[in-house]
């Protein structure tokens, strides 16, 4: 094979590694993790990335080496055909299978934390996805849903910091996906199902809430905001929103944002 093409094949692993080395510093990497459990997800991500990265580089280098060494124009040896090696086939079947079994067992704790070990706290809010917005409901002062004092907001999820947050996820129409990138939470919303979602946020601030399931033509605009705030600020916000919802007179000063 032409030397030029060999070097081009060599450029694939070189540029691939270079891109991954460059991306984090340039800001193209995982969003800031503010969750308690997120490190496990990130750890699994890095683990799988390293593993697949190493295999990727090794196979690409082998490809380059074979192409370079057995150049058809310089290699005058006649071609030899073989029906393969039973031992090698056993090896390359067992090695990936063992690796996959290992990953399946290795990730069990992370899976359980995110999907099985539901915290024993009351539901903070019910999030209903619909084309193309997030309708959010808090139980209000009496702590119960489906009563007159439920607090209704749209696209504006507030949660207290450093607490176990439990949310019920619903969908009004089609499949959506409730995605909090900074909390490493992604859960499909399925019509007809009430799905619990939980997390614990460590930092206050405003973060993205986006839909991660192509749900129709307006999918791109299905964006909400997650506000993590101190428990007292959260309670105050909730009380103010609840009071505004009971208005029988126009508020004195129009709210401005």
């Amino acid at each position, binding site marked *: 094979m032409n030397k030029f093409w060999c070097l081009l094949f060599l450029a694939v692993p070189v540029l691939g590694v270079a891109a991954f080395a460059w991306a984090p510093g340039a800001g193209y990497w995982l969003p800031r993790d503010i969750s308690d459990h997120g490190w496990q997800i990130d750890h699994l991500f890095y683990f799988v990335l390293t593993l697949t990265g190493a295999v990727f580089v090794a196979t690409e280098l082998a490809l380059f080496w074979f192409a370079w060494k057995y150049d058809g124009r310089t290699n005058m040896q006649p071609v030899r055909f073989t029906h393969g090696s039973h031992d090698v086939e056993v090896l390359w079947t067992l090695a990936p299978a063992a690796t996959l079994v290992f990953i399946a067992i290795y990730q069990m704790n992370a899976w359980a934390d995110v999907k099985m070990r539901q915290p024993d706290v009351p539901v903070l809010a019910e999030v209903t996805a619909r084309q193309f917005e997030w309708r959010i409901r808090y139980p209000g002062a009496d702590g119960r849903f*489906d009563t007159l004092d439920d607090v209704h907001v749209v696209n*504006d999820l507030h949660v207290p910091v450093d607490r176990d947050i439990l949310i019920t996820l619903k969908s009004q129409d089609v499949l959506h996906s409730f995605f909090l990138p900074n909390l490493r939470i992604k859960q499909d919303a399925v019509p007809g199902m009430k799905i619990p979602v939980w997390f614990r946020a460590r930092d206050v601030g405003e973060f993205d809430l986006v839909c991660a399931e192509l749900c129709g033509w307006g999918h791109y605009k299905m964006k909400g905001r997650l506000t993590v705030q101190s428990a007292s600020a959260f309670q105050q916000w909730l009380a103010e929103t609840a009071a505004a919802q009971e208005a029988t*007179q126009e508020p004195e000063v129009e709210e401005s944002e």
Partner: protein
Amino acid sequence: MCPSDAGERRRVALEGRRRRAATCCALLWLAAAAGCGGLSAPQFRLNMEDIIRETPDKDPDEFRITGREREQVRQGLLEEMRREKDPQKIEQLEANFGAALDAGTEEVLKLKRDKIKKLKILNTALVALFGTPDEPYVFPESGLDIKKIRLAAGPAQTVNSNVRRGLYRQHCVHCHGISGDGAGPTAVFLNPYPRDYRQGKFKFKSTEFAAKPTDADLLHTLTEGIPGTAMPSFKLLPLDEREALVEYVKYLSMRGEVELAMARYLFVDEEDLELSRSTLVEFLAESAESWSSAAEHVVRPQTQPAHVAATDPAEKARLLAESIERGRKLFAGEKAACVKCHGPTGLGDSEDKLYDDWNKDKDPEKFGAEAATWVLPRQQLRPRNLRLGIYRGGRRPLDLFRRIYTGIYGGPMPGAGPSPGREATLSEEEIWSVVDYIRSLPYEGQVAVPPPRQLTQRSRQSGSLP
């Protein structure tokens, strides 16, 4: 001639119907071609549906030359001859047939040419007053802010990264349409249809029945969305962008209202429109005034429900329960007559066929084959199911009060408060009670199951159940 006559007439009639079916599309093309140039830059299209509906004959063919005018006149003359009993006169008519045909055709064509010319004038006037979707323009007399409108208008792509433009086409156009006609490409899939701004009728607002919404009202709709419809919330757009969109909605609405006023003047009053600044401003003034004075018509309740003022929790609960009970009686009673549409259980399941204003005229039986060409077929209105706890115009008691007090403009919901020439049907105190009752409905502790009537009827038909 006589034996083939019936057949020929049937053929002509059939052709007429076919012609009608093709009319709407053709008219849109005509409208586009009338005043506009190429296809590259989008143009506002003339509101031909409403213009045709406003004209006395309601005949789309009045506005286009079909190539069949001569045949129409010929048929008319034949009909005249057929009706004539006097043989002498018939002879006379026959001798004159050629000349009469020429003269009649010329007259029909002249009328149509006049109408088409007027359409062009109408379009020119509108472009002069409002510009085009890419290059909007407003007279200072409109009271609109051109800076905001420019931010919302134009193509959605940002060519020059320093200039933000095209918000309307980015967020709204696929439902509300480039002309604000509520007939964008996604509109047909929605129930209810997106609002047609050109009518100047808005449902969810704080002002009196037929008054325009305030800027705050439109901003509220944009920010909170309209639950129960396809209108989503745009809460996360920066305030200046939402305000720009509000201004653009007003701009499209004003343009539509002026268009209809001018069309009435041209085709109903059959006047000529002079393309001078003063004339144009005259047409603009009425719509501009209704928008700028909207804030003066905000409905502010003078009283509050008694239980709101009470401080003792037990007293509060007792007063609320009393108010709900009073509301229940009013809801079912003759005076408020809520049950007529919303049903005795509040499920909104009355048997009446109800329509919004923009659907009322669209009776398919009245329009025949033409109805098949409508972009948005007629849509029936469902009275609100009050047990879902979904309130389109806002869930605050104040919002519900205003809905009941003013009624819903554009829809069949009447107001219970006073309006020009009509006494109030309910006092403020009574309205507050109905509000309390309605707010209690979703939580009444009963499961809102629709009556199984339909199911059993269908089962009986199929005979599978007793």
